[in-house]
């Protein structure tokens, strides 16, 4: 195990969530769940982040934003789609302005179900994402620097 899974820094982005899942994500940081005991820090900067946590589905307004955030994150990185809207579009799937789940735009590694997703399942999803992060470090995607290198 490398240091990667001991210090995952999270970037939380609200795509078009109803704020239900957002509040549950923030609840993870509260004293009751305290994800900082796993070294998890909520950062606001994609350049510092390892895990991209997205709530809500993709719509035409945020398509570019999500793509941009993902591109700005240094490798290795993982994406966690929190809630049913982020996973598939949910009840908003058929709306005229909604594109669908996060995986329409960027590759998603972990899907956390629920409406809204429970803090326990969000933490579980992020812990699962960490093992994928380790795997990505061992076997970097083709054409990418192996870490520590430059893009």
């Amino acid at each position, binding site marked *: 195990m490398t240091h990667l899974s001991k*210090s995952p820094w999270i970037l939380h982005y609200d795509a078009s969530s109803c704020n239900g899942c957002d509040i549950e994500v923030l609840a993870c940081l509260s004293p009751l769940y305290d994800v900082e005991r796993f*070294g998890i820090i909520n950062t606001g900067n994609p350049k510092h982040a390892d895990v991209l946590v997205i709530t809500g589905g993709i719509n035409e307004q945020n398509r570019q934003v999500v793509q941009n955030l993902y591109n700005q994150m240094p490798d290795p990185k993982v994406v966690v789609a929190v809630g049913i809207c982020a996973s598939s579009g949910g009840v908003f799937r058929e709306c005229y302005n909604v594109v669908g789940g996060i995986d329409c735009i960027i590759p998603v590694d972990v899907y956390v179900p629920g409406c809204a997703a429970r803090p326990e399942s969000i933490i579980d999803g992020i812990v699962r994402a960490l093992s994928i992060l380790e795997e990505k470090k061992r076997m970097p995607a083709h054409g990418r620097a192996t870490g520590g290198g430059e893009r």
Partner: protein
Amino acid sequence: MILLEYAVLFIVLAPFIGGLLAGIDRKLTARMQGRVGPPILQPFYDVGKLFQKEQIVVTPSQHFYVLSYLVFIVASGALFFAGGDLLLVIFAFTLAHIFLVLGAYSSYSPYSFIGAERELIQIIAYEPMIILAAVGMYMVTKSFFVWEIMTSSLPLILYLPGVFLGFLMVLTIKLRKSPFDLSTSHHAHQEIVKGVTTEFSGPMLARVEIAHWYENVFLLGFIYLFFAWNPLVGIIAIIVAYLLEILIDNTFSRATWKFTLKSAWIIAGMMGLVNLGVLYYLSGVVPV
């Protein structure tokens, strides 16, 4: 007299002490907020991880500025622990932070720019007080050399209580503690994304973090100078000062840059200058 062995000890040990200090800081902060908190070694895991990440280079000159920041922080700290000239130490220390500001300015990012401007305001805010502390030490011990201040048998804190309080005030700015963590913050809450460090990622951010550890150890060494006549009291003073900083960090909300600048200068004037004035007046009456 320059003691090279202490300089080498500082260069080797300071990252470990600084990292451990940061870990204890985070644990205590978490406990104060009713949380469990990360492991004590968390800062080392963070830096270890940052070195494993990809380095996204926004502009090539960033490398140079960040490396210069680290080198000059280490150099000023090493010179301090070697017993060198306090003024030279302070100038090298300021230069190091100018490199950090230049590093932030080198990328065309508005967040980075605001962070750089705030870092400059912080430098303007704390610099007079640090110079006053050096001048105060000179007035008492008649020397700018750290070695001679260290070995002086005079209890500096009794001559310079105002200067010490003023120094504690700017220490809050220097340690990047709330209410004065304007340019970048350790906390989960953000201040205009991440201030000066916004455009640094991976190994570059790790170097900034290590430089900050060196810096913290150097600043705590500076506190020790006030109590150098008695090593035990000195170490207790360092611990109490750091605990006080953690308490302040968790008690106050963030101040505006205007308040930071005003309060830093007013306290430097009230505490520092008045203290030095009294000392100057008394030196005519009682030989120091």
